[in-house]
């Protein structure tokens, strides 16, 4: 799907954590983000959405203030209402949980 260029990383998380088949996982992500199936598969739409909502991008320049990596995963976990193991571990280690 293009990973962080679209919502491939998010759809993949639903397959892993909830064992959702591809169509169900895409529908879940689209519903949670308030987007259409076409939009969650589109690189232009999702670049804007990901930058606005801090979901992490595939490019840093010219978006140096955008989130990436762990900080983006915090926001993805909240938006999709899923548990991300590394986020939970980070919270524990940082003493914020």
């Amino acid at each position, binding site marked *: *799907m*293009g*990973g*962080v*260029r*679209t919502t*491939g*990383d998010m*759809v*993949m*998380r639903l*397959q*892993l*954590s909830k*064992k*959702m*088949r*591809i169509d169900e*996982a895409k529908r879940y992500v689209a519903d949670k983000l308030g987007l259409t*199936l*076409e939009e969650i*598969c*589109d690189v232009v739409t999702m670049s804007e959405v990901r930058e606005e909502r801090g*979901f*992490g991008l*595939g*490019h840093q320049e010219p978006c140096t203030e955008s989130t*990436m*990596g*762990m900080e*983006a*995963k915090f926001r*993805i976990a909240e938006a999709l209402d899923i*548990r*991300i*193991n*590394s*986020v*939970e*571990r*980070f919270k524990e280690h940082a003493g914020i949980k």
Partner: protein
Amino acid sequence: MSEKKYFTRMGDGSIVYMTAEEIWEDMRAGMDDAVDRGKIPPLSEEELQKIFDIVTMPGGVVGVNPIDAVVTTSDSGSDKIPTKCGIPISRDTTAMIHERVLGCDSVDIGNPDYNYKTAKGIAKREAGILKLALDKTTLPLYYGAMPNLGFYTKPDGPVDNWAELLPQGKIKEALAAQEEAVEHSVNDILFVAKQTYEVGADAIELDTSGAAGDADFLAALKACEKITQKYPEMPVIIGMAGEFVLGMHGKLEYDGQRLAGLYPHKQVKLAEKAGASIFGAVVNTNCSETFPWNIARVCTFMKATVEASNIPVHADVGMGVCAIPMCENVPADVVTRADKCLIEICRLDGL
């Protein structure tokens, strides 16, 4: 005027030109072979026509509609750039390259010596690399390696070598050695699972399961069951070694099902029972047959597997499997055609 011939390839990657009649003949033969071996339903005429259209489609690469795109998993993904390409960069960096340059949907961190026996001895260090990568990446990141039961045999491992015992007629000893190796393997996988779970892994992958036969597949199933019981939030990906579980032991069972001789549509049911989140199905490429023969055979097996499954199925589309030719530099023309067939005909969940 001579009959039109279409460009395609043999299973070893070499170029071959075929008439429409020859392509149809090979597709039917490939499908029939899968039906016969797997005892599964054939493809419909419409599905075969679709494969023909994709095989003969003009263009170097073909694709699916963006809305039909599927997600990707990998095996030794983060290690491909340093080990396969000889580019000296660390695995946490290659994970970022997979995310931001290659657009992958997920990737695994794995040791160049890609097996759990090796990984166990350096599990803390492997987990350390994984933790570094997890801090810097957004995509799902998991640890991967093979059960690889053969590594547990003497002189490198603790048990007698069943491949040496069997020709000597020491059947009981050969069976016992495999059973003992299963327990060693499960323990090693569990140890690595614990280390990687504790640093935040998004999953653990048991790759190339069944490579050493039915005992190898049993080790993967048992390990999966134990991991998901002990760490319910740790998803497990089981990827297969081949289309058919070899009966090196022959009598091993999981949940009352004999493992030897199982094809993907039955393997997936056991992976599901063991608690796996994703099943990586394999259908072998026959180097002596054409791409039309191989892809029709692959689609027949894979369609049955997807229909039988209640968990996501990812086809293993690397060199030498799922109609991808057995050659180091795989040609994009055939790879993209195989992917398109698998997504559009088999309704696959990932690649």
